[in-house]
């Protein structure tokens, strides 16, 4: 998606219609052909699809470690990810479009992560939560993958060990902006699956 058009939200339709009203000098009886002006809006197909996508992310929580516990807080009652349209947690990658990598990915786990990512349907996004998932964190160690971006393309990195739930929400909002603006994702487009099973 590469649309740069202005996004017009359908919820703002009353505002839009009143704006249309005043600018066109519309008054008096309503012609049957002008009915559309009272409730319709104009936008690009790309934008409306992006709007739908960003507000209906279905996350797959890949919680492996401590960050997984903080992710529970993000989903939990106080921080409530549902407010951002991403509450339908799916544990099947085939039903989700946002992979939340929350926790350390070890060398042993890497082939599993790749397989999960490949099973997800397009368009798909990846959020790397915490220092371990982003870079290996303070585990510069023989059995820890030094960042999940070694094997899958990551869209948003959230720093912290573990990040606060606010930071994760911020990361999700950033991703939503990214989806809405249709920003190019070369890391995703140029990604080649590692030579794994």
């Amino acid at each position, binding site marked *: 998606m590469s649309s740069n058009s202005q996004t017009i939200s359908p919820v703002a339709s009353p505002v839009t219609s009143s704006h249309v009203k005043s600018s066109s000098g519309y008054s008096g009886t309503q012609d049957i052909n002008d009915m559309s002006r009272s409730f319709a809006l104009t936008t690009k197909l790309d934008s409306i699809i992006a709007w739908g996508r960003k507000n209906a992310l279905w996350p797959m929580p*890949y919680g492996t*470690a401590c960050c997984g*516990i903080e992710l529970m*807080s993000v989903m*939990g009652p106080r921080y409530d990810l549902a407010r951002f349209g991403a509450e339908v947690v799916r544990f099947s990658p085939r039903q989700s479009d946002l992979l939340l990598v929350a926790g*350390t990915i070890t060398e*042993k786990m890497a082939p599993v992560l790749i397989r999960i990512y490949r099973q997800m349907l397009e368009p798909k996004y990846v959020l790397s939560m915490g220092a371990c998932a982003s870079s290996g964190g*303070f*585990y510069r160690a023989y*059995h820890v993958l030094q960042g999940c971006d070694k094997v899958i393309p990551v869209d948003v990195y959230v720093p912290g060990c573990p990040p606060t739930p606010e930071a994760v929400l911020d990361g999700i909002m950033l991703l939503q902006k990214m989806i809405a603006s249709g920003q190019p994702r070369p890391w995703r487009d140029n990604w080649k699956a590692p030579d794994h099973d």
Partner: protein
Amino acid sequence: MTSLEEFKKEFTQAGIAVENYQFSRAFGDDVILMPKEDLLKVFSLLRKNQKFDFLMDICGADYPQREKNGGKRFEVVYHFFNSKNAQRLRIKALVGDGETIDSALPVWRGADWFEREAYDMFGIIFKGHPNLRKLLTHHQFVGHPLRKDYEADRQQHCTQSIPIHFDNEPGVDGNILNENFVPINIGPSHPAMHGTLRVMAELDGETIVRASCEIGYLHRCFEKMAETHPYNQVIPYTDRLNYCSAPMNNVGYCKTVEKLMGIEIPPRAQALRVILCELSRIIDHIISVGTGGVDLGALTAFFHLFTYREKVYTLFEKLCGARLTVSMTRVGGMAQDAPDGWFDEVLSFCKEMRAGVDEITKLFLDNKIFIERTQGVCPISAADAIQWGYTGPLLRACGVGLDLRKVSPYYGYENYQFDVPIGSAGDIYDRYLVRIEEMKQSIRIVEQVCKSVPTGDYTVRLKGVVLPEKKDVYGNIEGLMNHFMLVIKGLRPPIGETYDATEAANGELGFYLVSDGSANPYRLKVRPPCFAIWQSFPTVVKGALIADAVATVASMNVIAGELDR
């Protein structure tokens, strides 16, 4: 208590020649170094005489310098525990590179994974172990990472997942699947497996014919990291062992280092540690009960319980700024004092939590669906539990009232009024029953501590242990020098080794620490409580339904961070 002299006498009476044995005491622990050929004889004797009922831990240690001097390179260290009088004994045997040592499996069933881990980490070969293969590292990994000549950051990539396999049994190769049954793989990415566990099973209909676990999907090399970091920098790593109750690991580790250094921490630090530990126990049980509910289909209870967990997070945040991984302890005491009014806030939380526990009781223990799903499901007998090395709530659910806070109290637990709840059946229901009752007891303890917090300093003020206060660092030359020396030279415990254990949320959390007098630990072995518990899983669920196996996983509360380390 049996003294070392009495052990010597008993061994001699049993016809074991003790001339080559070394009996010694190290930092309050009894240690016997014996030739590896005698191990099985001595183990059988210790069990027969009922001296020790628990084999808590088996671990290896690598001393390459000894090999250069013509000695044997590895030490295998066994930790025994007697639940009757809290006596501990450490037995050590030397083994050279490529040599074999007898497996303790015929005497203690729970030796299974501990020996496999020692094989994986050091390449020590246990003769008679039927499944001596890698446990924590991936199957394409070459070498033994905890050997001193393996560099800490030398990664080896894994390109394939290991296929479904089972443990070898007499006459049956575990890698060959039975065509009559349906093989099933659950995890490591599966909601019931809590992130990183993996269970493989063969099913006849819905009944499990045989099962096996693959672990190590969160093996973050804690022990190697500890060897490459100064003592105080290991504390944040301990947070991430059992991340559901991080402060307890801090306390367990610092207590071990303090034991080695002979430091007695001030009463206020002890009180703060007790509060942190008991609050952690509550929130750990919240996770266990809440996710247990999710695995049985009760999502609401999880959301409800998490509100209480958030309240404890807020308390932790006020105390030190972090929510989950607090790293609040230091060797010698605490990092800082509690802010004004904090204890009152803890007290008001206790009041809310009391009401919360009553709600949890109603939601779970009085719930017909919950009762039907858990009562009489996958029980384990007390004798079996001890054989496997169960500790903590799971052991108490079987009716064994072992709690380190009672049998070998630390930090003034002997002064607080609390009961140790025990179950009777050892089934899943009793495990939750015990956990929920323990939450009530923890609230009792926290209330008692908060009402009488001792005044005074929150840390010892020894110049070689604790950094001086900032006003001294900036204000006088001595403070500046002490600060400089401690930062440059680091904390240096005396040469020696010790084992210390605390009652963590899942059971006995032990640390075996070897110091060579340098600024980093020479060897730090964690005895994680759920490691011993999880190894029994294939046996416990054999013959059960697959849905009951899922309930069992949840009730065991296996935390991958401390399981795989």
